């Protein structure tokens, strides 16, 4: 019998996600750990954190330890008419953690769908985002918003600073701050009041969709949102406009994923055609990332024992017999550690003291 494969919680999730993504035709992609710094310098706002670890390569080029995967994938995929590249990954990235303010190695899994992306691909990515969360926990929620709708409501505002303040307030669900901006900017009041209303949209997805229709939301975006939401498991999807993506990059749906017991979003993504335009590309793109570092505590291994069996032996025991006994136990599916004495703090299910038998025989 072969030994059990002991995987850590995050490793199990990585394997489950990889198998989920490949079953939809996504091809795993292995990237280099380093990239030229220029790739990130031009798109710092796209990164979760603008800080990047850099070093000078032997040829004098300024290189960076990858802080993000999407930019590398986008660069590696060519524009092909009427074709879509489906790529998935699980990679370590290096960036400053919001909480500690220091650099950390962060395991990230996710997928990108780049090319002639249409409603089918958008819906498929949303379905995979929801399934990814369901793979992690029984209690999960995928929130979806649509930048097309949010931006259409912002069209009446000419002052960029007001737009930025309004978006920041929307992402912190602060309707009062948006209404007070409306008071200070009477020319934009109508648009801002609609945005404030987006903060407070609650109720079932159908209620929210019909309210959006009443508000005169952008028709094409609303239809896209309606179609995608109708294809998702209704139990764990919510339309929520506080999920806002950077307007320089995101143009369509924006996803955030939460699982119960983890205080931060564990999944984030959306449609980011504008990033490709900024990189001089024609393709459209949608994707998401799952932040496995956020799941560390949730998936923490809480086994009662460190090992199933402690096999205690003595100097006078026949080593080959001791090892044979241990092997027999392992072949029975148990984990076994062979020791001369039990160290303090070791938790075990059974203790077999070979010396006790021998002591008995000697007596």
């Amino acid at each position, binding site marked *: 019998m072969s030994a059990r494969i002991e995987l850590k919680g995050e490793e199990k999730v990585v394997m489950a996600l990889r198998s989920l993504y490949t079953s939809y035709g996504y091809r795993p992609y292995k990237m280099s750990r380093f990239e030229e710094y220029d790739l990130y310098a031009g798109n710092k706002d796209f990164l979760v954190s603008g800080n990047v670890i850099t070093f000078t390569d032997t040829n004098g080029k300024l290189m960076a330890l990858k802080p993000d995967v999407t930019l590398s994938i986008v660069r590696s995929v060519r524009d092909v008419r009427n074709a879509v590249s489906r790529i998935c990954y699980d990679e370590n990235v290096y960036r400053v953690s*919001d909480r500690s303010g220091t650099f950390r190695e962060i395991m990230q899994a996710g997928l990108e769908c780049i090319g002639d992306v249409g409603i089918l691909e958008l819906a498929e990515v949303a379905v995979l985002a929801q399934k990814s969360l369901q793979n992690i926990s029984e*209690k999960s*929620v995928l*929130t979806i918003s649509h930048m097309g709708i949010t931006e259409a409501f912002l069209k009446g505002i000419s002052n960029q600073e007001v737009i930025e303040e309004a978006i920041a307030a929307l992402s*912190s*669900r*602060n309707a*009062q*701050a948006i209404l007070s901006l409306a008071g200070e900017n009477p020319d934009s009041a109508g648009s801002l009041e609609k945005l404030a209303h987006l903060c407070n949209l*609650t109720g079932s997805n159908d209620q929210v969709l019909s309210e959006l229709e009443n508000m005169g939301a952008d028709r094409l975006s609303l239809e896209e949102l309606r179609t995608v939401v109708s294809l998702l498991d209704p139990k764990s999807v*919510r339309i929520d406009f*506080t999920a806002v993506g950077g307007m320089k990059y995101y143009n369509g749906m924006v996803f955030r994923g*939460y*699982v*119960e017991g*983890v*205080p*931060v*979003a564990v999944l984030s993504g959306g449609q980011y055609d504008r990033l490709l335009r900024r990189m001089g590309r024609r393709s459209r793109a949608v994707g998401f990332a799952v932040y496995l570092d956020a799941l560390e505590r949730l998936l923490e291994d809480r086994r009662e024992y460190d090992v199933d069996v402690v096999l205690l032996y003595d100097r006078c025991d026949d080593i080959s017999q001791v090892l044979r006994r241990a092997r027999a136990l392992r072949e029975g599916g148990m984990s076994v550690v062979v020791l001369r004495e039990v160290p303090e703090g070791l938790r075990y299910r059974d203790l077999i003291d070979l010396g006790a038998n021998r002591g008995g025989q000697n007596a």
Partner: protein
Amino acid sequence: MLNIALPKGRLGEKVYGMFEKAGFSCPEILSDSRKLVFENPSCGVRYFWVKPSDVTVYVERGAADIGVAGKDIIDEYTPDIYELLDLNVGRCRMCVAAKKDFRENPDVTLRVATKFSTIARRYYSSIGREIDIIPLNGSIELAPVLGMSDVIVDIVETGTTLKENGLEVFQTIMPISARLIANKSAFEFKKDEILKIQNRLASMVEA
């Protein structure tokens, strides 16, 4: 059960009064004990008293689902949380103050003593002024009195402390009040309870 972080002190007691009126009472909380956690299962609430500047930490990290924090703390630490409601209590202002006879020389770097480095930096960068931040943790008023700083950026409630030290307000940066905040993930899983509290408090604030 909804976990609620309240700021220790006068403001916290006032805010608890609002929660109580809204139907989320926990009488034990007002007892003179050293306990930090108080629970009322029948109302589905568990309150903790925490240092006012730590409320956002408890909420952002999910130890509390919701909490009450001053706008000054929210803007200073910029936690990734929802800011659901202005409770309209604990009202004061974030101000720039200096000695009464202070005349600003725009030709030199302005020395700013403050507990609120982020807010001060953001304010002065918005008006394009070069500053030198002097981070302090208390008795901020002392800095301009001793000539260590030109101005201070601090919370002003009545202005009495400033007056007693020969200082006065030169600019108001923003108004401050207590806010109901929520953890983003908890909001998804305890939405009904959180909205119930938010709506009841909102109707009290408006009344």
